């Protein structure tokens, strides 16, 4: 083998000469190798960059670098949502303060943030409900001007509904029920219904509540995925978090912060939301109203939503909008009513879209309820407790928030924030104040001996004793803490909701479902994870530690899936390369039998022939790999310079913003080099071994 080293130069020379004298073969094999290398460098660099940016988004908006949760639950933690819309069972961390004391002193831990997710529904009723609520208040306040105004609005609502029900009656088979409904609608529009309204207020209101309100199908139920946490610590720990509207939940105060995305998508007026969507599709996705049929279809459906505007107008507003739109559209067709006008207005085209969009927000939006829930309001939300009972409570909406860089992403809008104390209540754990309140309630209903443990069951479990005293009819809806109180007191409580306070200690001591761990040095995630796991094991806690990717749920796994697909593609390309290289080398061996025999006869050992063949492929691999790797690296660097635009919301979330700026790491290039090396060696091994078996005697045969 000593000879081998000395003769390496000549081997290299022969190898290179062979490569250049078989240009077509070298070009084909080289191109495949170069393409494979390029794909590898580009693919792995892109994925690493995506993972890096995703790590930033995910870990700096919700998960932190690590998450701790119970080993006792049936489901895995998925903070960005999993496959089901329901609340997963991830178990409980019974005493967060204990965990905090354990984890906080660990080196490299910056903070540990308590968390817990629950699904709450907000029930706002429909347009008639809210108008009727206003009417009730006006009657109670003896405000006859307001009553008169609301009377007009209700008559108008009834009239609009009557049109709709008449149309339904025409096409429905069973008209009996519809005729009854129409009677109600007509009755409400009659002027004698409103005469001496003050005197019969309660009976009339009852009629409206029970007969009229159900006729407006448009209920106002909305879902909120609520993340209970320590709001102040959350703000400090997650640097992508920022307030959009309103204010942060003040220290010690209770309440909710809505995600801007949820506020815009689920709580905004349907017409405004659709207009926003059309605008976004034109501006961000580059679609055109002129030739995009999907977009045109959207606009046609939008124009049919005119009732959603009309329902919310009182008599004066109706008249005002009628005049405004007539002027705006320069319509002199007196036979068109306002409904027709709004429909025409909403039927936008490519020429007038921007103008009408602005006109809507300047002139129409102030007349309607643009959001179902506004910042500063207190709303009633309900959630199923862990025992399966419905728990209702009032919460103040302090503001809306977003995560920097992923403002537009749906996935980033998956949670709304609330304080830990409110969360525990919705989840089914009582505060001390509630315990006291429960005692009070117990005295009120005359149940005297109930132990503390049973009290909870009694409250949430609807124990027989409580229910017998209350209204049996409530059973179907579970327990409602306001069931027994009258409306005035309810208003008072609504106002008080934002004033409820708690101490820091209350947040820490007690239940959490999971906890985010923020690290000082993000690169030492594995090391710190082990340290935390060791501490947990020492204390014998039934908790597990997962990284941000696992904690993010399906979103975090997306990257793994993409990586698998990429690797599969690379594998196939290199497999093809392997077969082609192998084939061409076998053919080359057959062509060069005489040459190899000569070399062997002259005294070249078998190893020499092996090295010769290996070197040929490796040299080709080196050249092709360098070219491919270099072009891949250049592509990535160019992409990193200009940025790759995210063409839809999911991509925008994955990119952690509207653009991804990828970069190449030496690890990626090295990986590609190693893979191309291995593929070259494997592909050449067989033909090279065949070549070493060629006997020198073949050289002695003439070529006649």
């Amino acid at each position, binding site marked *: 083998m*000593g*000879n081998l*080293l*000395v*003769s390496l*130069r*000549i081997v290299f*020379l*022969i190898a290179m*000469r*062979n490569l250049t*004298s078989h240009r077509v073969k070298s070009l084909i094999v080289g191109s495949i190798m170069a393409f494979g290398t390029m794909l590898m460098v580009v693919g792995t660099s892109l994925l690493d960059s995506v993972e890096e940016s995703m790590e930033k988004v995910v870990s700096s908006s919700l998960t932190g670098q690590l998450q701790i949760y119970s080993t006792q639950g049936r489901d895995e933690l998925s903070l960005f949502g999993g496959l089901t819309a329901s609340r997963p069972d991830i178990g409980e961390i019974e005493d967060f303060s204990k965990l905090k004391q354990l984890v906080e002193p660990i080196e490299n831990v910056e903070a540990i943030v308590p968390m817990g997710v629950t699904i709450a529904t907000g029930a706002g009723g429909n347009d008639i409900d809210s108008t009727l609520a206003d009417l009730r208040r006006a009657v109670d306040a003896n405000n006859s001007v307001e009553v008169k105004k609301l009377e007009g609005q209700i008559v108008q609502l009834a009239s609009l509904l009557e049109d709709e029900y008449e149309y339904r009656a025409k096409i429905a088979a069973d008209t009996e029920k519809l005729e009854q409904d129409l009677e109600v609608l007509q009755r409400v529009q009659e002027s004698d219904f409103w005469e001496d309204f003050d005197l019969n207020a309660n009976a009339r209101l009852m009629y409206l509540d029970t007969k009229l309100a159900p006729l407006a199908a448009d209920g106002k139920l909305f879902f909120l995925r609520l993340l209970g946490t320590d709001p102040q610590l959350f703000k400090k720990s997650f640097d992508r978090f920022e307030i959009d509207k309103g204010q942060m939940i003040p220290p010690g105060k209770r309440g909710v912060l809505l995600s801007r995305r949820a506020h815009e998508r689920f709580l905004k007026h349907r017409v405004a939301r659709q207009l926003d969507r059309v605008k976004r599709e034109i501006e961000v996705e580059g679609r055109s109203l002129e030739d995009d049929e999907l977009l045109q279809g959207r606009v046609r459906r939008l124009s049919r939503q005119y009732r959603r505007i009309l329902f919310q107008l009182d008599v004066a507003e109706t008249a005002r909008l009628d005049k405004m739109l007539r002027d705006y559209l320069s319509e002199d067709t007196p036979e068109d009513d306002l409904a027709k006008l709004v429909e025409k207005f909403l039927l936008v085209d490519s020429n007038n879209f921007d103008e009408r969009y602005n006109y809507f927000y300047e002139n129409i939006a102030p007349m309607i309820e643009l959001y179902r829930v506004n910042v500063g309001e207190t709303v009633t939300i309900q959630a199923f407790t862990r025992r399966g009972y419905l728990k209702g409570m009032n919460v103040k909406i302090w503001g809306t928030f977003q995560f920097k860089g992923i403002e537009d992403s749906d996935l980033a809008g998956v949670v709304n924030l609330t304080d830990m104390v409110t969360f525990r209540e919705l989840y089914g754990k009582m505060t001390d104040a509630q315990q006291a309140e429960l005692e009070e309630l117990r005295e009120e209903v005359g149940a005297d001996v109930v132990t503390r443990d049973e009290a909870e069951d009694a409250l949430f479990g609807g124990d027989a004793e409580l229910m017998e005293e209350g209204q049996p009819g409530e059973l179907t809806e579970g327990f409602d803490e306001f069931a027994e109180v009258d409306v005035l007191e309810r208003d008072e409580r609504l106002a008080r909701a934002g004033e409820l306070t708690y101490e820091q200690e209350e947040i820490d001591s007690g239940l959490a479902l999971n906890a985010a761990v923020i690290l000082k040095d993000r690169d030492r995630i594995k090391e710190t994870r082990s340290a935390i796991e060791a501490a947990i094991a020492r204390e014998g806690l039934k908790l597990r530690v997962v990284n941000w990717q696992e904690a993010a749920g399906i979103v975090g796994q997306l990257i793994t899936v993409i990586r698998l697909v990429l690797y599969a593609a690379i594998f196939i390309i290199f497999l093809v390369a392997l077969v082609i290289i192998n084939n061409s080398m076998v053919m080359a061996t057959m062509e060069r039998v*005489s*040459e190899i025999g*000569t*070399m*062997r*006869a*002259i*005294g*070249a*050992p*078998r190893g*020499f022939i092996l090295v010769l063949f290996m070197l040929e492929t490796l040299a080709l691999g080196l050249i092709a790999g360098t070219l491919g790797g270099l072009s891949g690296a250049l592509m990535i660097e160019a992409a990193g310079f200009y940025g790759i635009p995210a063409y839809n919301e999911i991509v925008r979330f994955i990119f952690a913003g509207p653009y991804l700026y990828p970069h190449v790491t030496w690890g990626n290039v090295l990986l590609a080099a190693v893979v191309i090396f291995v593929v070259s060696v494997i592909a050449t091994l067989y033909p090279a071994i065949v070549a070493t078996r060629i*006997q*020198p*005697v073949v*050289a*002695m045969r*003439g*070529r006649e």
Partner: protein
Amino acid sequence: MEAIVEIEDVTKNYPLGKLVVQALRGVSLTINKGEFTTIAGPSGSGKTTLLNLIGCVDIPSDGAVRIAGHNTSALNDAALTNLRLRKLGFIFQSFNLIPVLDVFQNVEFPLLLQGELTKEERAQRVKEILRRVGLTDQIHQRPNELSGGQRQRVAIARALVTKPAIVLADEPTANLDSVTGNTIIELMKELNATAETTFIFSTHDPKVMRQATRIIRLVDGKIVHDGAGTEGVIEATDPALAGEEE
């Protein structure tokens, strides 16, 4: 005289389908250092087989072949290869130059395999042998840029550059015209005289044969003549001379 090739009662069998062809049937001979020997005989007489055995590219089925004292049957592939590299030089009928290397590199090739000389020593040795075969001006040409005679000179230079004990040539003039063939044989003879290298070659050509100091004639795998003179051998050896076509 020192024996460089010793062959004792050698047989060589080749399988040919289901048959076994006996290429050599009990051949014994000794060739001494410095001889200029030709192996003659009609096609299929076993000439090439004998050369292969002497050239250590094949081993006998029976009997013993000793090259410079080494029994080839007792050596493994690596040792045989080494023996070829150190003791033997080859000149092939079809020249068998490495097409991607130029004249200088082709000649240098065995020296590189030996790995004993420095770059300067190698260059000197290669230039010297190329001067002697008259290819000083073609030193950087590739084989495909040379004539047949020039190619065979390169092959001779390559065979001699390592100063081997034996040079084997299998029909070295078969692919050359008669004038060029003569020059090549003249060259070989000259080198044989000056370098004290043993030359063993096979040929059909009686003119070439006459140049040899010893002629060994094979017929059907047996030696029928072994001697210095060509008298009575040529006619009997080569039917072509008697007006027959092979």
